[in-house]
């Protein structure tokens, strides 16, 4: 590997940060799409020069871009997302029916093998796919057509489909997560879906066996062991060893089990990272100390990683798409904050450096290892 490229989406544009394999000196380009909210950028695993970017605005709606040269230049691609058939209602905050309305793309997940195929997770929650490099989008309606869909209700951020995982060993198996419907699995390439929320407990859901309604914030997988998933829920850090059929809590000794991100070390499937946040009503780290917590045992036993991170007066959040890991050795770990800092560790989290400090509020961070 010759280096890495970080793709950073912020409230006011996208930034691209590059470094060589040492990951010590960084070049920053941007803002790309200055002034627009960039919910997410992600590169194709099959062609690192292919990058998809989701640009959103309350004024002008959704605009999508594609780069074919690693982010040097961009082309505007299709932005028409039409739900299949009559979308009907979902549940609104007050429990009343509310029409399904497309608002924005939260997350792009490019195919593992085909640069022209990319999934889009959207608000109001649905899964779309393009097979022509983003020019046109078709819904995979089996998800929104699930029998529970009329009962799905939005979280504070909206009814958003924010996580898409593709099983690298079985391309027909997909996982998605929706706030606040929960996690779902498909074993037929997205045609039909099963809620996978057994074992999750949410204070606001009286039924301990509720099929849906959980506010899942993020799911992570290690590619060598795709049946094991880690979840950061609204409260609780969870784990499944059977592809989501059942979950158990692994919050252990975390100072708070609320948070948004969870990620897995690139080479150690039992090493995971979270950033604890004080509570659902106070979205900043406990005690004003920005700490990444790492477990090397697949959960329950956590150690605070603080070297290089501010340990006083740190009242930022780390949003659900704003942490990632690279595939170099040692594994690089990266996250961005709502205060505009992007922190990097080139030694699996032992030490951290703020590689840029005054960006707009960071919404997403992805990384590409460059050949």
């Amino acid at each position, binding site marked *: 590997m010759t280096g890495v490229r970080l793709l950073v989406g912020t*409230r006011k544009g996208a930034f691209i940060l590059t470094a060589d394999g040492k990951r010590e000196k960084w070049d920053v380009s941007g803002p790309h799409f200055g*002034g*627009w909210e960039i919910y997410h950028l992600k590169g194709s695993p099959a062609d690192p020069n292919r990058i998809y970017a989701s640009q959103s*605005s*309350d*004024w*002008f*709606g*959704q*605009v999508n871009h594609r780069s074919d040269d690693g982010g040097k230049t961009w082309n*505007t691609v299709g*932005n*028409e997302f*039409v739900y299949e058939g009559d979308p009907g209602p979902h549940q609104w905050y007050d429990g009343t029916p509310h029409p399904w309305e497309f608002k924005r793309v939260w997350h792009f997940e490019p195919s593992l093998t085909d640069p022209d195929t990319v999934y889009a997770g959207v608000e109001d929650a649905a899964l779309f796919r393009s097979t022509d490099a983003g020019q046109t989008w078709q819904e995979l309606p089996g998800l929104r057509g699930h029998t529970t869909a009329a009962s799905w209700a939005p979280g504070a951020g909206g009814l958003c489909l924010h996580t898409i995982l593709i099983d690298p060993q079985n391309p027909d198996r997909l996982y998605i997560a929706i706030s606040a419907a929960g996690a779902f699995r498909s074993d037929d390439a997205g045609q039909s879906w099963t809620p996978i929320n057994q074992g999750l407990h949410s204070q606001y859901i009286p039924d301990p066996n509720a099929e849906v309604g959980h506010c899942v914030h993020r799911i992570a997988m290690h590619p060598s062991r795709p049946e094991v998933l880690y979840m950061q829920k609204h409260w609780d850090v969870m784990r499944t060893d059977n592809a989501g059929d059942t979950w158990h809590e692994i919050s252990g000794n975390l100072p708070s089990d609320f948070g948004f991100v969870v990620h897995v070390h690139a080479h150690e499937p039992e090493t995971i990272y979270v950033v604890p946040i004080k509570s659902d009503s106070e979205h900043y780290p406990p005690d004003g100390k920005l700490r990444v917590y790492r477990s090397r045992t697949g959960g329950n036993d956590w150690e605070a990683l603080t070297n290089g991170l501010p340990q006083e007066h740190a009242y930022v959040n780390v949003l659900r798409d704003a942490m990632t890991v690279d595939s170099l050795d040692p594994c690089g770990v990266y996250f961005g904050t709502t205060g505009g800092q992007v922190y990097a560790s080139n030694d699996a989290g032992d030490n951290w450096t703020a590689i840029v400090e005054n960006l707009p509020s960071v919404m997403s961070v992805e990384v590409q290892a460059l050949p």
Partner: protein
Amino acid sequence: MIRVRLPHHLRNLAGVGPEVTLEIEGPVTHRAILDALEARYPVLRGTIRDHTTHERRPFLRFFACNEDLSFESPDAALPNPVATGAEPYIILGAIAGG
């Protein structure tokens, strides 16, 4: 010749200056202007009005001749100075947000 003024972000998206000109045959209406604008700059599709319903996006307004014409019928004739090019048709973003 119809003159159309775009908000900053849409100018950047379309790669144009503050004002573009369009040729329209037939009645000059909101719909005719937006159809012509989107035909010439396809990247603007979906950014001013909904792809399917063609409803105006709620944070945008249409002004001309010092009048807010946003709530006129899409097929209503616009003032004659717009049709002659004496006055621009202004697409304006709401002043809101951070």
